[in-house]
């Protein structure tokens, strides 16, 4: 079974950062039955990692595996669109909208 790994770039401990992480984990739980890894990078604390990843906008989610790499910006509040943009497999049950 494919393991999905994501890196989530956020800027500081803001509400938007928090929302993005919650939404990402929610989507992964729903679509990937827990088979995933999420690494959260705070660009304020680690700007060199943002530089390396050439990140401009926060939040930005990068799907590292499986290839191809995908990027989505925003807090992922629209779960349907976020799942498609991240290329997640269809969920067992329709997830609820919102956080």
């Amino acid at each position: 079974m494919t393991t999905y790994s994501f890196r989530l770039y956020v800027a500081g401990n803001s509400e938007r950062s928090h929302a993005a992480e919650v939404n990402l984990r929610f989507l992964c739980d729903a679509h990937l039955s827990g088979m995933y890894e999420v690494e959260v990078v705070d660009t304020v604390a680690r700007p060199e990692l943002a530089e390396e990843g050439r990140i401009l906008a926060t939040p930005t989610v990068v799907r590292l595996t499986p290839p191809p790499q995908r990027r989505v910006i925003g807090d992922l509040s629209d779960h349907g669109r976020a799942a498609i943009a991240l290329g997640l497999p269809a969920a067992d049950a329709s997830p609820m909208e919102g956080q």
Partner: protein
Amino acid sequence: MTGSNTIERIPTGISGFEHVTLGGLPAGRSTLVSGTTGSGKTLFAVEFLSRGIMRFNESGVFVTFEETSTDIRRNAASLGFPVQLWEDEGKWAFVEASASIGEDTPAVGAYDFGALVARIEHAVRQTGARRVALDSLNAIFTQFTDSGIVRHELFRIASALNALGVTSVLTAERPEEYDGVTRYGVEPFVLDNVIILRNVLRQGRRTRTVEIVKFRGAQHRTGEWLFTIDPRDGIVVVPLAFLTPSDHASLARVSSGIPELDEMCGGGFYRDAIVLITGPTGAGKTMASLRFAAAAVEAGERCLLCTFDGTPGQLFRSAASWGLDLKAMQAAGLLRVMCGYAEVMSPEDHFLQLRNAIEEFAPGRLVIDTLSALERVAAPRTLLDFIIALTAVLRQREITTLLTGTPAGRFNSANAPLITSDVAALADVWIQLRYVTGPVEIQRAIAVLQARGSAHDHSIRQFRIDRTGMHIGEPLTSAPHGFTEAISPGGAWESPESEVTEGPSG
């Protein structure tokens, strides 16, 4: 609101730019530099940082939204800016924010530019930068489709830059000249300071100008100022009309190379004089110019001889027919000849080439024969600016200068004659050559119409040219045709008889 003189300035180091801005960009603030494609925005940004490092030892951060850092490094290197070296030395850092080709990042939900701000702050801290350039903002609008968010976030970036205390240049593209400040309406967030670069066609010539639209609370010059992009010096704002009044005038005299003319001028020209000789084609202007150059060489002075109309061969041949050996003068290292047609470049570039030659050769005298050739490539206002800028350089160095001109441009005589009284007003000495109709023949006549600070001869004298030079004779006794109209109305150059003036060549 801050008072008009309290805003600190940061000199850009861009040639001539401090004159227009009256000291440089407002320090610790953001300035928007807006222009159409190819107007020189990126170069401005690159130079702002490069000059900062070279002249003021101030580090810089370049945030690129459009070109890759590789492109910028390469283009900067072609102007002699070793960006790579500065990066290694920790004086220059790139924040690469250009979109990867083919990469389309979908947006789902709200976002901001927190990561970009963090990266810029990081780079500024790493290098200790005092200067930041963002080039160009438009590219970010194409990367991120929600222009409302982008505008808001750009405001945030500008605030972050101000908070860091750095002086920044943000470039933005305008869709066309003379219409709004930028595309996408990015101006409101940095509207405090706005500069517009233009690249327009005027009279069939590419003309670049820079205009300070506003510097909040800070003085600056208004209007459009010509600039050029010099392969050696980058952006050069031609310092037109920035005449620094000379605090002393030379009392030393130099010879014109024609003893009788020296006498007419009260004992030769002052060393710092600008001399204008006008006259129709063939009247003897080139002859007088060459005598003037020869007099420099005889006195052991260097002379720069510039002609915008012809080839060195023709010039050397004419000189030889008057007994002047230009080749020998060149060989002695006392003469440098710059020949070329006026059309090969813009007046700004001619100016720079001349200025560079003056700096390099350090002549005691300069000859330009003739200014009228430049009329073919320059609007009257531009040509006047050219002369003003040049005289500023010349007076500063006390270079005795001889300029020649034809009464009216031969090619555009329908237009106003060449800047006429304007150039004469700038010149210290104005000598007019003319043809006059005698009882049985056409004669040449010379008059000194003006010689500042000297008692000069007011008569109109006959002269002739032969193999040994120019020989000025007795004053004309009867009122000749030709001179009277030319002199009386404040020195109009054109006279009804000007058609007669196409006489035998000298």
